[in-house]
């Protein structure tokens, strides 16, 4: 196996916030050793679980976010376990951690203490970064979506209804994207300089610049965004784009303009369903006229709403796209498994799971690229699965030393 991160050794201090970043390093070919507490990473205990039975080795969120990693279980409250981590960092390329600022300094494991490894890239991904008035606030993913601005732009057109934070730990993903940028650029630099460095990324900072037009509109024009059901927030109310279909689903009917080909196909479809209304008026053959009507008027939008209401979602997606119109069907994540397009693109990777006696298809990863080759390399580790191997083969500890660490409760 090759991959853009092949040959690198990464030490990841288990945390729900950074595990997706560690996964992408592992998927890119790095050897990622996750240092977990004796009773497992917090990521092992969130659920959902296999058959909904809580078990450190059977958490599906953990499975997804920790593909191909190795698990080393250490109780970092014990000095001997801290020494194990120190020795691992002395030979690592990348350290990824998300502890509260100051935590690792108390163990003499902060960057200054371990920078004797000149090439080490030490990356901290935390809620607020290493400093600032809010650096010790208690947060979770949804709290970041609130504080960072995502929620204020997401929800419903009714001004009295709550703003919404979407699911799937997307605030943490945003932080992970930036810590991966920085690690990758630091690796690029290290190839020439031979030197590692310290990286400080705050999830709040990442979320705060992730709200598209909201900040520039405020900065330059003092405009506040309206939340609008299922669509972009905007400084003015816009007609709905998320439209219900005949089969009880929704279509995102976003499109900028209708070319002649698109328009003709749309009208034929409308005729078929008997919803064309006045749109056969020859004036709409002129693209500028129909574009103006679509942007400012109701005639075209009303007809589209009628069309979608009498069509199935899948039909809307395929017919519109075939005609060059960029509508989408609002699908459930799991419905993508059935679509030939992703099979044709070799999107799924089969990962064996002895716990359930079969393999499961995982998403390949964000990019189709043979050279970068970012894809899951194997299942997530069992708790402490690699502790003994790492202590023996990486650190050269003998049986007595390992027994002493076990007896002291420092490892599992």
């Amino acid at each position, binding site marked *: 196996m090759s991959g853009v991160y092949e040959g690198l050794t990464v030490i990841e201090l288990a945390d729900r916030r950074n595990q997706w970043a560690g996964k992408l390093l592992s998927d890119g070919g790095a050897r990622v050793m996750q240092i977990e507490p004796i009773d497992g990473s917090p990521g092992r205990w*969130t659920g959902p679980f296999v058959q909904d039975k809580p078990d450190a080795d059977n958490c599906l969120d953990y499975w997804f976010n920790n593909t191909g990693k190795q698990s080393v279980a250490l109780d970092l409250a014990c000095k001997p376990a801290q020494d194990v981590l120190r020795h691992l960092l002395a030979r690592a390329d990348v350290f990824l951690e998300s502890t509260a600022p100051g935590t690792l300094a108390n163990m003499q494991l902060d960057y200054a203490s371990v920078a004797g490894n000149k090439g080490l890239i030490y990356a901290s991904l935390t809620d607020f970064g290493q400093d600032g008035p809010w650096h010790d606030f208690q947060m979770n993913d949804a709290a970041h979506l*609130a504080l960072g601005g995502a929620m204020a732009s997401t929800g419903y057109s009714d001004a009295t209804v709550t703003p919404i934070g*979407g699911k799937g730990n997307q605030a943490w993903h945003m932080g992970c994207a*930036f810590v991966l940028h920085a690690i990758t650029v*630091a690796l690029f630099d290290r190839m020439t300089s031979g030197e590692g460095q310290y990286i400080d990324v705050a999830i709040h900072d990442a979320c705060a610049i992730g709200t598209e037009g909201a900040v520039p509109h405020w*900065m330059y024009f003092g405009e506040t965004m309206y939340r609008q059901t299922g669509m972009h927030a905007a400084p003015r109310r816009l007609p709905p784009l998320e439209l219900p279909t005949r089969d009880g689903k929704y279509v995102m009917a976003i499109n900028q303009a209708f070319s002649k080909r698109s328009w003709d196909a749309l009208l034929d479809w409308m005729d078929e369903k008997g919803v064309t209304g006045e749109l056969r008026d020859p004036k709409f053959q002129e693209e500028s006229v129909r574009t103006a009507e679509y942007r400012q008027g109701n005639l075209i939008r009303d007809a589209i709403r009628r069309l979608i209401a009498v069509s199935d979602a899948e039909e809307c997606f395929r017919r519109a796209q075939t005609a060059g119109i*960029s509508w989408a069907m609002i699908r459930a994540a799991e419905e*993508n498994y059935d679509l030939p397009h992703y099979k044709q693109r070799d*999107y799924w990777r089969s990962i064996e799971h002895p716990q359930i006696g079969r393999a499961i298809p995982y998403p390949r990863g964000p990019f189709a690229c043979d050279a970068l080759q970012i894809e899951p390399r194997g299942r997530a580790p069992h708790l402490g699965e690699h502790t003994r191997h790492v202590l023996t083969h990486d650190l050269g500890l003998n049986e007595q030393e390992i027994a002493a660490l076990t007896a002291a409760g420092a490892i599992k």
Partner: protein
Amino acid sequence: MNKAATHHPTKPAAHNAAHLQQGVLSGIRVLDFTWKTVGPWAPRLLTHYGAEVIHVERAGGWDDHRFAAHRSLTTDAPEPNHVQGEKQLYTDPYFNTLHHGKLAISLNTRHPEGIKIVERLITKCDAIVENFSAEVFPNWGLTWERIHQLNPRMIYMSSSGFGHTGEWKGYRSFGPTAAAQSGLSLASGLPGQPPAGWGYSYLDVMGGWMGGLALMQGLLHVKKTGKGLYIDYSVTEGAMSMVGTYMLDYQVNGRRTRRPDFPPGNRAVFPQVAPHNTYRCAGNDRVGQHWWVFIACETQAQFEALCALMHQPGLALDPKFTTNEARVAYQDELDAIIGRWTRARRRYDIMRQCQAAGIIAAVVQSAEDRVEYDPQLQHREIFPIIDHPDLGECPYEGYPPKLSRTPAFVHGRAPTLAEHNQYVYGKLLGMSETEIDGLRERGVI
């Protein structure tokens, strides 16, 4: 706004690339054919490390984020393409943010000479990025094979909704299209209501950040191997790789995200904890939307602290709320109690009091809140103010990572239309004034 964040000196109007700061990616040059939102983000991110990104716009036209301008930044005129005079910046607010630190040239790629120029530029660049429909580059003769032949070290990234292979390769997409198709839109909203989607729009932004990561990974790969590469980036597939847990839950437990109790608004799905919701506070924003605060208790200690803070310590002893399991079962009732407490209170007071007691709490902050009042973002200089001779002092969105050895930075301001034609065609490609004038006369640039 945070004046203290000004850390870039005034620079003269730049018609060449000399105004670009030096960074770890200085010397890297990117040919940027992207437009809209998700595409431009990716190469923009390289500018924070010193890469020279040349944004190519259609001769006689412009990136439609310029065109979509509500008002020009400098004139307040309603249509920037109608602005007369010297300061024709054609700069929509979002264009100014999205493209800041880039160079801009105009080029007519429908003209045979235009394609020849693209080919010459390819030999001078390290990466080429586009987010057109799949047929556009091949129609210009720019297949991966051709690009690779012109420059074997070249990174070519196509950023598209559905990728450049497969039966949907010709399908059109915007950020919300990709969010809808991937399963992300359905993972946001109140139960029994239409999907709320991702209104900022998440994939236009995060999709670009992941595209930027691919480019950085590509640069690392080329530095290691000397070999160029093609990245077929489908934004929808990128998004699908961010909802993998739901896919595994379906594969293993047969549980679908298309079900009546999902998504559950702002309540927690896994792990199930309560309280975990938004609560209305006193006041409304400037356009009449209510103000809200998010509160969550993930531990028993946090819940007991919340009861104490609300002056209802007895709640923690009520069998309906003594354990997290019970609270999840009775969260309608619990949310109503908390909502009554927050309703007449000020949102920042609630956040401060909760945080002081160790409870997860966050104001639902608008752009105004973040830019003007958020002391943490001010401390971290996330919205730096950068001086420019034409625009004056303007605030920008910063770049989050702080690197100790190779710091990232923000150049400030997007290029004006065709601002760097002289630099790119004259200096980079070595054309004479006469040649450049000829290209202009023939409508090539």
